[in-house]
């Protein structure tokens, strides 16, 4: 097997090795001409070029797009409108009732995303923390069980969405269970509340393994003698948990919270495949709003989509900064 793998490796890398040899004289000449500094530039260039064109320039352009109007995609053909797109997004009689806003879809999406983040992040942190605590025990086959919870993390959001659409449909597996329990079958994704709950549950299902791993790594880094000392002193378990585990797990919990919040705000793929935003607009989230306003709708409005994504980016940056601060203070060992 190893020799087979070895030869396969040789077969794949042989052309690359030849190519690398072929460019060597050229690069030697470049090195002689520019020195080591030129080589540093050479090594950085491909990545920075791609990075600059496809990440940095778009970041700057986003602001420009958010201040222009019309349906054209070329910036030169778009009239400058100042803060009009922002004003349009923010114009609202009563922020608690999205339908009174000028861009009611935006506020519906914002409210849905807020609720989603609230429920999904709390569920996510709770479930991954319990799973990590359990996986941290001395159990047989721990590696296997760790892998079990990690499995859905690798699945694509489209696959995740389709798997659960299939289970939640009228003739699906969930209704089979429901009927066996003597209850009425339902079309889960056609009801506002159950569809929303499905979006929360499915995205938790898909990503909890990732957060579990981070928390598990944190738990395993806590020195064991702390617990032994606590046990010798007869400290009650609840207090040991509160005074040792939680504070020492603090930085990891904060990381999990940051990441879950940031991912939660951006929720799109699996929810989109699962519910398509429906029924009605009950599972319409911000990223889907941006996607539809910017690209999918007939009356596409790139400026409005860019303004909405600037607002979302603002929320993300604030969240990141707040959470970084929290994680720093908890790492400092308060409490």
């Amino acid at each position, binding site marked *: 097997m190893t020799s087979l793998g070895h030869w396969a490796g040789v077969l794949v890398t042989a052309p690359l090795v030849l190519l690398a040899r072929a460019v*060597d004289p050229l690069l*030697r000449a470049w090195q002689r001409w520019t020195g080591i500094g030129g*080589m540093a530039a050479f*090594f*950085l260039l491909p*990545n*920075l070029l*791609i*990075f600059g064109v*496809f*990440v*940095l*320039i*778009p*970041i700057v*352009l986003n602001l420009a*797009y958010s201040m222009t109007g019309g349906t054209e*995609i*070329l910036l030169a053909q778009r009239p400058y409108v100042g803060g009009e797109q922002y004003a349009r997004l923010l114009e609202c009689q009563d922020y608690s009732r999205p339908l009174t806003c000028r861009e009611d879809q935006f506020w519906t999406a914002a409210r849905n995303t807020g609720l989603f983040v609230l429920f999904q992040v709390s569920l996510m942190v709770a479930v991954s923390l*319990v*799973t990590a605590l359990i996986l*941290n*025990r*001395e159990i047989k086959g721990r590696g296997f*069980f*760790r892998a*079990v*919870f*990690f*499995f859905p993390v690798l699945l*694509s*959001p*489209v*696959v995740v969405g*389709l798997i659960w659409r*299939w289970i939640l449909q009228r*003739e699906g597996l969930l209704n*089979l269970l429901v009927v066996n329990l003597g209850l009425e079958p339902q079309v889960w994704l056609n009801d506002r509340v159950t569809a929303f709950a499905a979006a929360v549950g499915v995205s938790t*299902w898909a990503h909890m*393994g*990732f957060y579990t*791993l981070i928390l598990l790594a944190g738990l395993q880094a806590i020195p064991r003698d702390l*617990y032994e000392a606590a046990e010798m002193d007869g400290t009650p*378990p609840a207090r*040991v*948990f509160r005074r040792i*585990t939680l504070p020492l797990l603090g930085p990891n919990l904060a990381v999990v919270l940051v990441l879950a919040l*940031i991912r939660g705000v951006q929720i799109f*793929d699996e929810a989109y*495949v699962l519910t398509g935003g429906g029924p009605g607009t009950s599972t319409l989230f911000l*990223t889907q709003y941006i996607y539809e306003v910017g*690209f999918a709708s007939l009356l596409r409005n790139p400026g409005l*989509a*860019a303004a909405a*994504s*600037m607002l*979302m*980016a603002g929320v*993300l*940056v604030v969240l990141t900064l707040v959470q970084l601060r929290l994680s720093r203070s908890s790492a400092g060992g308060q409490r």
Partner: protein
Amino acid sequence: MSAVTSFLTRRRGQGRRWHWTDVVTWAWLAAGVVLMFGPALWLVASSFKGPAQLAEFPPTLLPYVQQTAQVEGHDEPLPLYTVTREDGTEVVLAEIRRIGTNSQMVDPANPEERINVNIADREPVREVGFATENYVAPLVANNFLRFLWNSVFVTAVATAITLLTNSMAAFALSKYDFRGRNAVMLLIVATLMVPLSVILVPLYAVVNATGLLDSLWGVILPTVATPTGVFLLRQYMLTIPDELLEAARMDHASEWQIYWRIVLPLTAPALAVLAIFSVVWRWNDFLWPLIVLSRRELYTLQVGLNTYAGELNVQWHYILAMTVVTMIPVVLIFVFLQRFITAGIAGAGIK
């Protein structure tokens, strides 16, 4: 009490009696196995069912195929049913045609005599069987082979470019001392905070301006300069001693040779982790390909699947089979390479 301690804090020792925390542990783990694997297994089992069986409720666990029999006087094989007669006995008959609520049937042993049966009195004769045409038909007829190829192309090319450009940048950032190095590093790490979903519009404009719209390169290029990749590789390269590089320079190795023949082979473990991540990322990408690609023959599997699943009349028997196909590479990675990924997440927190 100490059992509760160890539950909330750390593991408990061996050889003790079962405690309620053990029950909770194993119940949780058992539920985990069912919940995490169950849905995917259900998908696989369902993908082998024919369209009629998929519409049935309650669904059966295993896929079944209706038995047929060749009956004299009929060209096509006829489907077999178990018919309950008035006296309560059961007999196996073949159906010729259905007229309203009546079924015209025939006994395969006695093909002359036709029997009329109410459809409420007959049950199809089935045995476990696999509707493999679910897999064959869409690959041939519905473009799925094309989608599969596009996905493989995007994944392979994007991963190769990611490994090359990220490792080159990481090499420069870890082994050279130049002005602005920290600024570059900071810039790269800071963009970790800017996800794709907040730069969709301008990125689309840039891809449009570079002529990459509606091409697979437009899917590939914006994704390859991953900050995570640069960061991961740089951290690893920092552990390679500089003396090694100095020794090579003494022997008149060029900087390119040092990168290619010394640093890169030594970085193999980190490159392997990045390669695995990149394959999973690119294979699973959805939103960006959805925006860039509008010609059907360029769709990746994920976009194609979503399109077919979004049609008014969803052909679930094909969708389910193609979802399984989409899942296969990732499942293989899970089975064989899962350790590397979990190590990468636990160690560097990348995803």
